[in-house]
């Protein structure tokens, strides 16, 4: 009886019920699907980029100044790109070309990749700027000189005048920001304050730019306190 009991248990254990449908093997079908999805994603991204790049901005008519990097020069028509948008310029014998040193130059001195400022007229009938003045700019002209970020102070060192700021919208980033006696500090009411009033955990808005010496450290021109440290609520 006991032997029969043990045999029944062992038999059940040795032959487990299998799943109704076989599970996919970890190999090829799953990997192929992922690869196909990735390919489709890349193709869609490329198409979207092409489409965006081909859209000429619709800007109101009048006297306009377009900036951008030269993408294409086609006889008297120049395509420039700024922030992923294309702008069309038309030049003619009336167009004045100025180089980086403020000397007059000519159309044949232009080349793809150069940064330029084009001033002229845009009318309602055409998206092409009738360019009267075209100025070649230094490279990297379009990098903003200052950044504005709201974040929390993760660390502050009074002795070295450095604070570490973590943006509210991206906790994986952090900025090392130097301050000095020229850094303007403001309260939430925009009244002048002092750097020494800043504390760890406090939310601030920092207006800063890269330092010349080190592109991983920034200099704060202005700090605006968003919150003051919360006082703990008394427990009942």
């Amino acid at each position, binding site marked *: 009886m006991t032997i029969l009991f043990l045999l029944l248990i062992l038999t*059940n254990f040795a032959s487990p*019920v299998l*799943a109704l449908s076989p599970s996919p093997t970890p190999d090829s079908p799953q990997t192929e699907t992922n690869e196909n999805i990735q390919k489709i994603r890349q193709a869609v991204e490329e198409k979207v980029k092409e489409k965006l790049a081909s859209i000429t901005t619709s800007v109101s008519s009048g006297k306009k100044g*377009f900036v951008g990097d030269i993408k294409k020069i086609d006889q008297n028509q120049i395509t420039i790109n700024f*922030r992923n948008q294309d702008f069309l310029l038309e030049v003619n014998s009336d167009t004045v070309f100025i180089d980086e040193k403020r000397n007059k130059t000519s159309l044949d001195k232009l080349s793809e990749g150069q940064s330029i400022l084009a*001033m002229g007229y845009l009318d309602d009938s055409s998206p092409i700027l009738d360019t009267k003045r075209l100025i070649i700019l230094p490279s990297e002209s379009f990098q903003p000189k200052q950044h504005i970020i709201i974040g929390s102070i993760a660390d502050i060192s009074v002795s070295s005048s450095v604070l570490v700021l973590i943006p509210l919208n991206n906790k994986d980033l952090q900025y090392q920001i130097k301050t000095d006696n020229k850094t303007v500090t403001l309260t939430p009411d925009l009244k002048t304050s002092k750097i020494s009033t800043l504390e760890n955990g406090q939310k601030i808005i920092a207006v800063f730019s890269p330092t010349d010496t080190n592109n991983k450290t920034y200099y704060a021109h202005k700090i*605006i306190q968003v919150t003051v440290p919360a006082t703990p609520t008394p427990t009942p």
Partner: protein
Amino acid sequence: MIKEYLIAVILGLLLGFGATGAYYSLQTNKTDQNQPVAQADIPTPPPSQENVSTSSDTDKPVQNNLVIDSPQNYTIVDNSKINITGTTSPQSLIVITTPVDSYTDKTDEEGHFDLTVTLESGFNIIQISAIDPQNLQTDLELVVTYSTANI
């Protein structure tokens, strides 16, 4: 005897289902491990301009509920001081930077703002940020050229 038989059957069923469940959950874990794992971002330099809306359109650049009434984007002015006016959420903080300086103000009860800023000669990339009472930041960028050249 019947009693023992029943106990054996019940135990057998429990063991069988348990083994099946374990086998099935192992298969599910293996499938999950084959999915690509998101990589954590690594710290990088300041936000690229891809994150900032370039007010490409029109008369009134708009991003979320931040609207710039004046000046128009890509405009040319002949005065180094201009007024930037616009609308966003009430009681928001406005921060504007030009190549010359940075400016701050608060919007009124209706969300309007009006700041005077100084431009440098040539083109100016002006960054406008609005931070609402919920600390949500909205950014816009304008290009304004200061030139007295006769064109």
